[in-house]
């Protein structure tokens, strides 16, 4: 039989599980350019997440609250430990730090408008505080970052809270990046940098190292601001038990833990996908640290990284968080990655819902850009309205789930209300595998 006989069955082409088309494409890209892939967003790989948890709801032993009639509160107070003026929010969903520079001024204004309308806070980023953002944000958290771009005592005093950023989930141990396309005249002036350079901000603070120094740094910030403002300490999720313990010992009012699904404006893909741990894996360990110090609820815990829905909010709260923070989801609510811009996404070599080259400054939605024409596409009033609506829906969803569990405040949700669908999620969340009373690592068990 001839080898080229068309009737001979052929082995089907088989893609390697190791050298997938995606991997091969990246090898080719690296070979062509000589630079690692830079992108925005958080981890795209599949990791155990809130989807792997379920609420048990009411049963014979638990009774629910009436869906629309019985009260289920959502307010939260942050900064009760030392601050003279703690932050009082209507909902336990805050807007995470995103910089002017990474985002357009219109996007920052929209975040302020949406957050304020929903009764929550928004946060500055690695570029200082803009008047638009301060003006439109009823409650504004001012990030204190390693770069200290735009840092000054006047803005510090204008803030409602201060967030000392040690790290973020997308890149624990990494600094910021803002490529030249986005260093406009205004961004350059605010950061004291030359226009158009590829800017890399520092990965650690210039004037303190370690928890003992951090305690003194927090003292200085409190002294400058009259002990009025809550001081948050934000860390990327890596060693949540120890980081939480040390942040509390350093004097934090609030600890913010950002899981690996949390987004960034720009960093190396290898960093995003290979450093840090999933959001789900850090909450119980952070809560354990707070409980060991007798500080749970005295020092508040904010969790971020991949929060998308009221279900995610409710599950984070049930695991012990006081509030959550959203970044990527807020951008999508504003209009990021909307299929209505598909033609333009295609021209950029991508597609809606996959666009992550936020660092290039060509965002068709006008959000992650400094291009005047593109950024003018975003109407801050309309985008702010969308964000408010989205926050409202998340809140209603979280209330729905809390009522189903018989809770008259979303913060009353507890681990006992949850089960896990997978062994991994059960181990990370420390709740039983569905239909069992067991999870891997449960005290008193052999596993």
């Amino acid at each position, binding site marked *: 039989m001839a080898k080229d006989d068309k009737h001979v069955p052929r082995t089907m082409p088989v893609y390697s599980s190791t050298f997938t088309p995606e991997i091969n494409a990246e090898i080719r890209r690296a070979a*062509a*350019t*000589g*630079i690692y892939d830079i992108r925005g967003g958080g981890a795209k790989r599949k990791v155990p997440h809130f989807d792997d948890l379920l609420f048990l709801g009411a049963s014979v032993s638990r009774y629910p609250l009436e869906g629309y009639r019985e009260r289920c509160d959502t307010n939260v107070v942050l900064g009760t430990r030392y601050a003279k003026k703690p932050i009082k929010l209507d909902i336990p969903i805050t807007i995470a730090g995103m910089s002017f520079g990474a985002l357009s001024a219109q996007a920052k204004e929209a975040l302020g408008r949406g957050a304020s309308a929903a009764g929550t806070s928004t946060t500055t980023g690695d570029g200082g505080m803009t008047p638009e953002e301060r003006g439109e944000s009823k409650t504004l958290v001012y990030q204190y970052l390693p*770069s*200290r771009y735009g*840092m*000054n*005592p006047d803005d*510090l005093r204008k803030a409602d809270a201060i967030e000392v950023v040690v790290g973020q989930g997308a890149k624990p141990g990494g600094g910021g990046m803002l*490529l*030249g396309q986005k260093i406009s005249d205004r961004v350059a002036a605010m*950061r*004291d*940098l*030359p226009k158009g*350079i*590829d800017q890399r901000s*520092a990965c650690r603070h*210039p*004037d*303190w190292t370690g928890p003992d*120094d951090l305690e*003194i*740094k927090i*003292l*200085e910030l409190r*002294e*400058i*601001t*009259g*002990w009025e403002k809550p001081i948050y300490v934000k860390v990327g999720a890596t060693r949540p038990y120890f980081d939480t313990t040390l942040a509390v010992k350093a004097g934090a009012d609030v600890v913010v833990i950002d899981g690996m699904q949390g987004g960034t404006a720009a960093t190396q893909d290898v960093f995003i996908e290979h450093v840090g741990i999933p959001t789900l894996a850090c909450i119980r360990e952070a809560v354990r640290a707070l409980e060991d110090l007798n500080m749970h609820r005295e020092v508040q815990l904010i969790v971020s990284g991949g929060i998308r829905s009221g279900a995610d909010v409710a599950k984070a709260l049930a695991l012990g968080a006081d509030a959550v923070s959203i970044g990527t989801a807020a951008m999508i609510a504003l209009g990021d990655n909307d299929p209505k811009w598909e033609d333009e996404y295609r021209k950029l070599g991508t597609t809606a819902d996959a666009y992550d080259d936020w660092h290039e400054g060509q965002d068709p939605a006008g959000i992650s850009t400094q291009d005047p024409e593109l950024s003018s596409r975003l109407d801050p009033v309309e985008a702010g309205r969308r964000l408010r609506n989205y926050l409202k829906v998340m809140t209603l969803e979280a209330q729905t789930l809390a009522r189903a569990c018989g809770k008259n405040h979303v913060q009353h949700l507890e681990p006992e209300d949850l089960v896990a669908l997978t062994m991994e999620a059960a181990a990370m969340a420390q709740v039983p595998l569905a239909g069992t009373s067991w999870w891997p690592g449960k005290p008193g068990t052999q596993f």
Partner: protein
Amino acid sequence: MQTFDLEANGLRGLNEALQAQSQTTNATAWEVVNPRGSHAVAVGLDAPIEVTVKGSTGYYCAGMNKQATIHVEGSAGPGVAENMMSGTVIVEGDASQYAGATGHGGLLVIKGNASSRCGISMKGIDIVVQGNVGHMSAFMAQKGNLVVCGDAGDALGDSIYEARLFVRGSVKSLGADCVEKEMRPEHLEILADLIERSGVDAKPEEFRRYGSARKLYNFDIDNAY
């Protein structure tokens, strides 16, 4: 002259009193006694007052200073005059790490030596060190002038942006992207002004200038697409 006993009356009372001073205050001269290495002494000031600290301080003395003149009659711990916006800070003794870190403006004079990372991430401040500076000084320095009358340690000006570094003595090594640059007349003028304002016994011609080679300003991409 207002005298404040830090040991007796506490840090909060001191900073509250100093921060309460306005542009038109009559209480323009303050003396702080018994600092005993306290942290965050005279931070966040924003008035044209003169504060003399009678002894050594801990971390972050004169942090985020605006307008005030703060004189430390001793040595200063880490982060003296960090993020200073304007005004003048003078340290009679030595300064520990991160002196003048991220400072946006004003003048910091250190009459002794400064430890490592002096002027780290400086953003417009002028720093004059009459002695030596330690390693990694002016790391990621963005704007402003660092004048070192003695020697500089390893990796001076690593990853520097547009700050100007002037060193009279030796430089143990230069950091990434930091190079020696031509001393032009405008630089001699800047130096002469800083030497005069800081009361240093030196001549501008004795210094060499260092700055950014600007080779790290953009990613090195072989074939961008």
